[in-house]
């Protein structure tokens, strides 16, 4: 049994602020090494050219502390709160919103959040989308994922027939990537959530994107196989980097799964562009 540990809201604000500024300017090593590898094996000149520019951009962004992409994203967070944590000095959710607000203002990030109907900008990139989970322990793990709109627009949730099986799921995912073509800024990472309810599948797909790029599903060998085969089929489509043609359409497919209702097979495909920003901190 852990002793109750206090975490002040100020600490949450600072951590969230730092995470969103860092992830928006400093591309993770997982993504960089996947792109470097792709650049070596790409067989079209325009595809290679696009990958070279992507690597050049990552260097400039880091050296000059500039956002990697003008779309600095909707702020998505996964927060695992230890059940022995006591948040002090304010409101937990508001602390996260304040961290996002400060990151986007002080980090000169683009405010990309608006009213869905009037399209009026909220002005500070809030509200962030916060997924909180209560877990054992007395620490707080915060995963920050600025999520771009272009790749999000190429995502969807469907209810497949329960008889679809692994093959049906694979066909559906490949078809989504094919239809998206150049739109989501390939090379992409494809997050797939299988099972649960409709919203659970979407959450799993998003969470799959938080995994280090290319790390296979370690909990179920069937899913690791699905990831491998789906990626192979996607990269045979020929879409290539930026849709200019080539063998690098996706860098990875990440699948997460949970049991579902006997009548259903929910599947969400959540596409992530090559600027796959995610970072975490443990308080």
């Amino acid at each position, binding site marked *: 049994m852990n002793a109750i540990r206090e975490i002040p809201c100020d600490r949450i604000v600072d951590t969230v602020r730092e995470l969103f500024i860092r992830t928006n300017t400093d591309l993770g090593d997982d993504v960089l090494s996947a792109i470097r590898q792709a650049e070596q094996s790409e067989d*079209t*000149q*325009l595809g290679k*050219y*696009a990958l070279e*520019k*992507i690597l*050049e*951009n990552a260097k*400039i*962004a880091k050296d*000059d502390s*500039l*956002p*990697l*992409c*003008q*779309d*600095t994203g909707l702020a998505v967070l996964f927060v695992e709160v230890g059940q022995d944590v006591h948040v002090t000095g304010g409101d937990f959710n508001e602390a996260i919103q304040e961290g996002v607000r400060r990151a986007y203002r002080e980090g*000169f*990030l*683009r*405010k*990309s959040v608006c009213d869905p109907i009037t*399209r009026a*900008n909220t*002005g500070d990139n809030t509200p962030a989308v916060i997924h909180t989970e209560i877990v054992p322990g007395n620490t707080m793990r915060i995963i920050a994922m600025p999520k771009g*709109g*272009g790749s999000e*627009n190429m995502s969807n949730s469907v209810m497949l027939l329960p008889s679809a099986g692994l093959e049906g799921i694979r066909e559906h995912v490949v078809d989504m990537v094919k239809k998206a*073509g*150049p*739109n*989501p*800024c390939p090379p992409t990472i494809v997050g797939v959530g299988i099972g649960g309810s409709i919203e659970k599948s979407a959450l799993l797909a998003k969470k799959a994107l938080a995994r280090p790029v290319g790390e296979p599903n370690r909990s179920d060998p069937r899913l690791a196989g699905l990831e491998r085969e789906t990626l192979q089929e996607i990269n*045979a*489509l*020929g*879409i*290539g980097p*930026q*849709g*200019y*043609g*080539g063998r690098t359409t996706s860098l990875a497919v990440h699948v997460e799964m949970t049991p579902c209702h006997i009548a259903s097979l929910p599947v969400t495909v959540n596409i992530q*562009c*090559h*600027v796959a920003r995610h970072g975490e901190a443990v308080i």
Partner: protein
Amino acid sequence: MEHTHTIHTPLTEDICEGLRAGDRILLSGSIITGRDTAHKRLAALLADGKELPVKLEGETIFYAAPTPARPGRVIGSIGPTTSYRMDAFAPLLMEAGIRGMIGKGKRNDAVRDAIVRCKAVYLGAMGGIAALMSACVKKAEVIAYADLGPEAIMRLEIEEFPLIVINDSKGGDLYEEAVSRRV
């Protein structure tokens, strides 16, 4: 490698007719920005026969909304948004004088037809290289719809913007050619 052209705006009928899908471009000169809401507003004014806040004749429009500029910088990071959201308005804007469009992603048939009919061009900017492209912008100024914040219409002076011809005035389409090469 396909041709690389060094081009200065304004784009003309002649320049556009010399470009082919897959050609690399280094574009310099003056362009404007505009995306979703700006397009909706411009199209509404055109439909009503009203005066526009910006002249479109011979212009090149970049579907972009940059990050805010840090003190001492001309502009923040800048890159293309996905173009299909402007498809409903693009033919009308080409009829009104727009000669070049810069964005990313597929266009619909109506836009591709209008590109051929108006002898225009659709240039692809790479998504996700906005820090690099920021360095190509030498001057930036909001010229209309300031209320739209990052989505305002700006005039940019650019130098050697790295672009690729996606849709040319002869009906060529790089995205389709790229995929058909594999089959």
